[in-house]
């Protein structure tokens, strides 16, 4: 139990509020404000996880989002969430956390055999799986891969339906500042003082960033942490500022669109802010780099800055005896902080020949052994760090001279800091290599995100911009905030930067790789990517084998592809690759950072629109009646329509047959409200519709209807419907149910992008009107008593329109038919729909009227040989194929699809064309989609046609089908074969597609 809680201190914890939670089933105590990692360390636990490939024991390395090792499954049951970073999860009473990727336990993991094998011979080298598991072929699927899959993966798969709520919040800002460390606070203040509306998002629970952990920085004459608290309070008090904590900048997209991922203390589980910002300031700070030495993954080896964080923020000491290993001055702060906290600092191992800066001097003055020109050659220990071997560093970077062992339980390492440029590069920001500071930093002169106006809209400030010193970072951030505001026309006052003091820093010495003694790559592992177990030797192997591009090396070794997305490993890996290729780092390049900044909850991405709010069901005014009367629902587009209305004890088939008979013998009523209704108005409406439909619409007289077809540019039919010319001259275009939005979009696209000169307005009135079809020989006698309008054939002929009242409700009548029967479609304002439905139903009760569903509708139309979009059409069928040439104008100079239809293949005599099909066994239905072939016995049968619709016709008492057959209309009477499963062959005779009432006598009454 070397890690422990200090008796006092801890900026973020509340010692008055103890919190008990469970880790791997055992109770652990911490304080409110602790992260899981802090509380576990405070309770003496340093072992927190197992690595991906070798299952090596791992402890926590970092204190923030960059943590690669301490991943846990947090929560129970359907709330269990895998792969949570212990450094980012705040503990709560009763919380349950489990470590991952081990069996049977964290302490004793069978998977560690991988590490044992690898220690004998490194057979699990980078990409070994590309070279092995090749033989025998069958074993990949049945043996190798299942084993690999089982041992890969991290946390357990979630189960069940997520009970949590997620919220989306849309917001606008003049200036969005991401990060509320020193730079973010300063930039936000500058922009806000100028009057801009500002949103500031901080991923931690408190603003201040590294100022909270550093005790030697003063700003404006006060300790940095106090200055930060003051700035945060001032911002929070400004009406034009929204200051968010526990909210990270997740991604930047085109034109100032940003995603912020908030985990609020109260309210929904997560809140996704979708911000459109005119200017963005990225102030995301910097991330410390680990050092690559042998066994640098032992629990107890941590980032130097993280050690300071644990001491300052949570009063947790990760151990008692500390060695610091660094290439820079900053890490000496850790030595001093540990010393001040009463821990033993055994030594600072500094690879530089000399360390004469203020911090090294302060360390020496405190009695800390500062050992320059030295490196850590190897860490030793099992499940925890026991000691380090240190030695002189030779000119070639290798170990020289005798090894010295220093006992310690914490090694605080620092390879310098890399600006967190991720968000900047999400949206096209370019980087450059800064040789002096050994870092990639933003290079807006090479490319920066831009707004819709093409102006640069994103600035980077402070440490994220490569300015690591307090004074420079502060001035940079104030300037960035002021620039953002003044870009937008706010008069930014050039604020004087407050005074900033901190110990002076001397330059670092890049240290990418400290090879251990002897043939360093032999046996010991120098980790670059902790989570994915990628070592320096792996990267060197990639280079040796020709995977020279950083993208190749990354994908070959999996460097940087773990859940931390390479926050700790990218630069070290790149430098190692560059070294192996003897090329300068910038020539090897850097990989592209992609959203999100840290893994983003899919529940949060989906937001509230889940469950019943996912594609909400569109309901017609009669929906509830259908529901109450046995509707067997079928999803059609966003709607549900009754497939049929089943009565008690009735099968689906019997129910459909009953409805069909009702329409043929008496009358049926159909809720047709879902059909698309697009109102097309304006002086050019007729011209526009002539271009859109294959037939002539401009000549349609007010008060009349015409069936119309729409083709795409390739000449293929994609929607149909009745176009009604209303008495006032406007056009009302009916579309298919599923096609309403598509056709509306299609019209708008042509109007807006191709024919903007046309004076036409389109409105989608689908939901404004209800529509009821009343069809059957008794339709007229049922409806006539309800209305004063004359429904006789002479007053309202087929394809006519009438307007008036029915059952006291204003209605528009279309005398159109999709069943071949005498039929009226009655439109009424949507809110009167149910009343009209009830009135007609009651009026027709005596004559045997019955509601019918979509399936009866389909059977009725198939009996008449009417085509159905989506059944007879599939995007490859022309009107001519369907025998609809009569609806394709020969007179019009142009319409969409006309030129395409003139191409040779579309007028080819061998094309498949619409026919009716009657099975030789009348009771047996052809399967949907079955293909006809010329010779079913042939080895590769030649396809000559297919079934497009197939039903049992109650009217005809036999199976009927529509189909497309090569030269079909020329082959009437011919019997063709349909090979089915298991060698079965069905035969059907080609007949006219109109099976019933070919003369149309029934509808022309």
């Amino acid at each position, binding site marked *: 139990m070397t890690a422990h809680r200090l008796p006092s201190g801890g900026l973020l914890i509340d010692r008055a509020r103890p919190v008990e939670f469970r880790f791997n089933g055992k109770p652990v105590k911490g304080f409110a404000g602790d992260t899981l990692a802090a509380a576990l360390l405070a309770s003496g636990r340093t072992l927190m996880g197992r690595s991906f490939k070798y299952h090596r024991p791992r402890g926590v390395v970092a204190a923030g989002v960059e943590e690669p090792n301490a991943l846990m499954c947090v929560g129970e049951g359907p709330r*269990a969430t*895998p*792969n949570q970073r212990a450094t980012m999860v705040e503990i709560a009473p009763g919380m349950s956390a489990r470590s991952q990727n081990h069996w049977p336990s964290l302490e004793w993991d069978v998977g560690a055999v991988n590490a044992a094998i690898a220690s004998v*011979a*490194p057979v699990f*080298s980078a990409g070994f*799986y*590309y*070279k092995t598991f*090749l*033989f025998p072929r069958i074993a*990949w*699927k049945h043996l190798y*891969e299942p084993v690999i*899959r089982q041992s*890969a*993966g991290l*946390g357990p*798969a*979630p189960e*069940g339906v*997520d009970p949590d709520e997620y919220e989306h919040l849309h917001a606008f800002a003049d200036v969005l500042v991401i990060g509320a460390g020193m730079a973010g606070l300063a930039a936000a203040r500058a922009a806000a003082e100028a009057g801009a509306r500002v949103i500031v998002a901080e991923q931690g629970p408190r603003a201040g960033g590294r100022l909270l952990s550093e005790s030697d920085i003063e700003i404006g004459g006060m300790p940095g942490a106090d200055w930060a608290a003051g700035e945060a309070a001032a911002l929070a008090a400004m009406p034009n500022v929204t200051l968010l904590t526990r909210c990270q900048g997740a*991604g930047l*997209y*085109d034109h100032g669109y940003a995603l912020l991922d908030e985990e609020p203390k109260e309210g929904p589980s997560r809140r996704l802010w*979708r911000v459109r910002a005119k200017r963005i300031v990225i102030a995301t700070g910097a991330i410390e780099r680990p050092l690559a030495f042998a066994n640098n993954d032992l629990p107890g080896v941590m980032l130097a800055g993280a050690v300071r964080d644990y001491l300052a923020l949570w009063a947790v000491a990760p151990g008692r005896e500390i060695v610091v290993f660094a290439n820079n001055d900053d890490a000496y702060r850790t030595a001093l902080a540990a010393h001040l906290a009463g821990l033993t600092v055994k030594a600072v191992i500094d690879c530089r020949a000399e360390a004469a800066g203020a911090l090294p001097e302060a360390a020496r003055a405190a009695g800390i052994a500062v050992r320059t020109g030295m490196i850590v050659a190897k860490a030793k220990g099992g499940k925890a760090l026991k000691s380090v071997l240190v030695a002189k560093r030779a000119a070639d970077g290798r170990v020289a001279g005798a090894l010295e062992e220093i006992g310690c339980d914490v090694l605080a390492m620092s390879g310098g800091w890399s600006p967190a440029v991720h968000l900047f590069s999400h*949206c096209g920001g370019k980087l450059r290599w800064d040789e002096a500071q050994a870092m990639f930093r933003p290079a807006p002169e090479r490319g920066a995100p831009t707004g819709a106006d093409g102006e640069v809209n994103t600035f980077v400030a402070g440490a994220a911009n490569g300015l690591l010193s307090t004074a420079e970072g502060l001035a940079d951030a104030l300037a960035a905030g002021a620039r953002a505001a003044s870009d937008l026309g706010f008069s930014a006052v050039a604020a004087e930067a407050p005074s900033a003091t901190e110990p002076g820093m001397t330059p670092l010495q890049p240290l990418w790789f400290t090879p251990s003694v002897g043939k360093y*790559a032999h046996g010991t592992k120098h980790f670059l990517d902790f989570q994915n177990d990628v070592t320096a030797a792996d990267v060197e192997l990639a280079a*040796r*084998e*020709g*995977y020279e591009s950083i*993208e*190749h090396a990354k994908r070959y070794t999996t460097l940087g592809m773990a*859940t931390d*997305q390479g926050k700790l490993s990218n630069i070290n890996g790149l430098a190692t690759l560059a070294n192996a290729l003897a090329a300068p780092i910038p020539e090897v390049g850097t990989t592209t950072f992609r*959203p999100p900044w840290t893994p*983003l*909850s*899919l*529940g949060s*991405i*989906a937001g509230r*629109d*889940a*469950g019943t709010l996912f*594609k909400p069901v569109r309901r017609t005014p009669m929906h509830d009646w259908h529901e109450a009367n046995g509707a067997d629902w*079928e*999803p059609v587009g966003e709607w549900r329509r009754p497939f049929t209305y089943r009565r008690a004890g009735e099968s689906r088939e019997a129910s459909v047959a009953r409805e069909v008979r009702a329409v043929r013998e008496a009358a049926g009523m159909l809720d047709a409200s879902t059909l698309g209704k697009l109102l097309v108005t304006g002086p050019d409406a007729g011209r526009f519709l002539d271009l859109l439909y294959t037939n002539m619409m401009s000549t349609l007289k007010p008060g009349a209807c015409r069936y119309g077809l729409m083709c795409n540019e*390739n000449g293929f039919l994609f929607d149909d419907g009745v176009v009604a010319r209303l008495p006032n001259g406007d056009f009302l275009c009916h579309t298919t149910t599923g096609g309403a939005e598509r056709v509306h979009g299609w019209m708008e696209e042509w109007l807006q992008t191709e024919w903007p000169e046309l004076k036409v307005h389109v409105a989608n009135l689908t939901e404004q009107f209800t529509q009821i079809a009343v069809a059957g020989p008794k339709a007229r006698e049922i409806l006539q008593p309800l209305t004063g309008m004359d429904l006789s054939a002479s007053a309202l002929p087929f394809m006519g329109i009438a307007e008036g009242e029915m059952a006291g409700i204003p209605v528009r009548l279309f005398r159109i038919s999709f069943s071949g029967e005498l039929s009226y479609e009655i439109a009424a304002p949507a809110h009167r729909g149910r009343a009209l439905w009830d009135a007609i139903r009651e009026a027709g009760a005596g004559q045997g009227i019955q509601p019918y569903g979509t399936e009866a509708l389909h059977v009725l139309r198939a009996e008449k040989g009417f085509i159905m979009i989506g059944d007879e059409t*599939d*995007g*490859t069928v022309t009107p001519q194929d369907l025998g609809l040439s009569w609806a394709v104008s020969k007179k019009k100079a142009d319409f969409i699809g006309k030129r395409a239809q003139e191409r*040779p*293949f579309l007028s080819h005599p061998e094309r498949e064309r619409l026919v009716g099909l009657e099975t030789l066994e009348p009771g047996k239905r052809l*399967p949907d*989609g*079955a*293909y006809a072939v010329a010779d079913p016995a042939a080895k590769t049968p030649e396809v000559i046609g*297919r079934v497009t619709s197939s039903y049992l016709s109650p009217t005809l008492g036999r199976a009927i089908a529509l189909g497309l057959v090569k030269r079909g209309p020329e082959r009437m009477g011919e019997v063709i074969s349909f090979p089915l499963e298991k060698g079965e062959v069905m035969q059907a005779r080609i007949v006219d597609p109109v099976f019933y009432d070919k003369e149309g006598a029934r509808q022309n009454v």
Partner: protein
Amino acid sequence: MQRYSAFAVAREALGYHQGWERAWGAPEPRAEYDVIVIGAGGHGLATAYYLAKNHGITNVAVLEKGWLGGGNTGRNTTIIRSNYLQEPSAAIYELSRGLYEDLSQKLNFNIMFSPRGVLMLCQTEHELRALRRTAHANRLAGIETEMVDVARVKKLCPIIETSGPRFPVLGGLWQPRGGTARHDAVAWGYARAASDLGVHVIQRCEVTGIDVSGGRVTGVQTSKGPIRARKVAMVVAGHSGVLAEMAGFRLPVESVALQALVSEPIKPCMDIVVMANTVHGYMSQSDKGEMVIGGGADGFNNYTQRGSFHHIEETVRALKETFPMISRLKMLRQWGGIVDMTGDRSPIISKTPVEGIFINCGWGTGGFKAIPGSGWATAAMIANGGDRVADPFSLDRFREGRMIDESVAAAVAH
């Protein structure tokens, strides 16, 4: 070529892997080649490999402006299937799927083809009818698929919520020999094998101009100087229009960004590939444990290989309905790949108006699965002047109206 095997790995492990050779060469370009293939993605590399392997044409250069396999080959969701509706599509995708079966052995590089099975869900009556038709078509084309009922769907993929409520699952079309492969490995495997046969794979060599004389190609201008060739194949997916323009012709192709994402890795929970066309999304689990999710394409033409958010949102929302458990997973990264779409959403494998220039493009959202078959057919076309599998995909079809439209069978990007 150094043979790869478990034995070789063990042997090299004893020498701490110091003895491995380069997987592919790093040659300087010659002054002239018999064939230049522009673009070292999967299709270009496969074309070069089969030119050498099947036709003995080894004096071939593959020119790549960036790094090989860096375009859509390395950006797709790795699905391999051949359950296509139209005959020409079924022919090339099934040729391809068949070649994938033993590609690891043929290339001596484990591309991890895993015939874990591909399931296309039916979530409306209409979809059920459409996929029944596909099943009939597949049977006639000799492609092994079958319609399965809800109980079988649940058994094949227990994490699917089959009862809706919004779009209950009514059944599915199951292709047991469809699956996934490791996308990068396909490019690397072909590069290594082609290189071994004498093909020059030249990276960081950008084509800046096409030399045409008297209507016939004579060579290309590159960032590494001019290179002569009597035959040039353009195999560059999203940027095909740019190259065609260099040679003076236009293509019926538009380029858009297709969006994809992966989750963090979790323990195995999904053995098969599922495509849900009604809700417009598809998902599988990689060997590493990540859930690989694909969705829609941006609604506007562009060349940015960036992820945009709104399609990701729609896709995740839709898949959460069918796979409720994903709600508690996290998106690890998202990206976009530039796909080149033709008018009928089928590819172009064709001669061009310029004598000696061949083009392979227009794979849209479905190119990865076609790599071996596409390379096979393109190589045959270049070597023999035509090919049974490639010919239906010629450029002429747009003029003739001979479209190969799969939209009925695949309403979703894939």
